[in-house]
């Protein structure tokens, strides 16, 4: 086959046809500008037909139904993805009645108290925050009133000792309690932003789960 470029050039109508007369462009330019002039009238001044109103209403209704379906779908998927969240006090040394548990990704063991201090329904909001440096992040857990009361009582007598955050029964972090934790707690752990975000996302997914 001949070279494609040469073939196309040889067949190019622009090389063989005369250019359209200027009048052709002028006529079409005029038509475009006339249409633009009509489109330039503000929408509020344009007459609205009953059919247009019905079409708009139908579209809005369809959009609302579609949005509702999406919200319902997301809500359902969140329920399916819900993770059991718990905070329990812990110790660094074994003692009778404590449950030995490994802290994920650390090789460290702690010893859990049996009581669950707060769970999913005690959380109001979770967010990742910087914690002492550009590459160190913590997780701010805001508890609701009931959760704050329970945490304040539990942590007041537990300063300097670890507490355990469990997702689905697994200890994912065991920060040391720096202060009595009330309505908002800054959980430090020298996590990277990605690690902190991963943990925060999983906690958020668990909010609302019983």
């Amino acid at each position, binding site marked *: 086959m*001949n070279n494609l470029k040469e073939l196309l050039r040889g067949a190019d109508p*622009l090389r063989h046809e005369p250019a359209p007369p200027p009048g052709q462009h002028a006529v079409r330019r005029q038509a475009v500008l006339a249409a633009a002039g009509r489109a330039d009238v503000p929408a509020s001044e344009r007459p609205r037909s009953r059919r247009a109103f019905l079409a708009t209403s139908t579209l809005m209704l369809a959009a609302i139904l579609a949005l509702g379906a999406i919200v319902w779908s997301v809500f359902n998927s969140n329920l399916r993805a819900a993770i059991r969240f718990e905070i329990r006090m812990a110790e660094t040394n074994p003692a009778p009645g404590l449950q030995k548990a490994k802290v994920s990704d650390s090789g460290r063991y702690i010893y859990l108290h049996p009581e669950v201090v707060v769970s999913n329904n005690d959380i109001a909001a979770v967010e990742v925050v910087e914690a002492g440096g550009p590459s160190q992040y913590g997780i701010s857990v805001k508890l609701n009133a009931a959760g704050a009361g329970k945490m304040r009582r539990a942590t007041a007598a537990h300063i300097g000792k670890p507490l355990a955050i469990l997702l689905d029964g697994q200890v994912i972090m065991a920060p040391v309690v720096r202060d009595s934790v009330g309505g908002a707690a800054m959980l430090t752990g020298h996590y990277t932003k990605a690690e902190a975000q991963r943990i925060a996302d999983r906690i958020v997914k668990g909010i609302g789960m019983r």
Partner: protein
Amino acid sequence: MTLPVVADANPVERLGRLFDAHHERLYRLARRLAPNADDALDLVQETFLRAAKSPKRIPAGASNEEAWLVRVLINVRRDQWRRASVRARHQDAAFENARNEDTRRSPEAGLIARAAVWQALDVLPPRRRAIVVMHELEELPIQDIASLLGISAITIRWHLAMGRRDLARALKTSGGTNS
């Protein structure tokens, strides 16, 4: 890519300026996408009518304006091409008729071959055809076409490869080349 949007004080004046600045370039592309000169003029007009309907969506700056108009033109042509899908189903027969018609009109072998080559371009979807035309006839570099159409250079290369393959098949089927 999000292009800046400029609200012109007078949309009609701006559209007139756009028409004057870009209609020749658009006509050259349209003529290479449409089957005849009248259709190409219609295609350019329809492109500017779309611009008239939504002037606030036209980005500022000559190159951005041109890119936006070229994309609209290709979209308009694509809509026409899809509506003509029935014709495409009978493409082979139509092609044969066109060839016979050309033969009757112009017995010169060169004209027949030229018509056959140009007819072969009809097998390409409009965007692919536009890419082939811009690269092979307008001699635009691949990166410039990518910027103009808002797609990646890899996609442009792929369209070019597919376009050349489809054209080769169509030309072989039609016997439009002498090799």
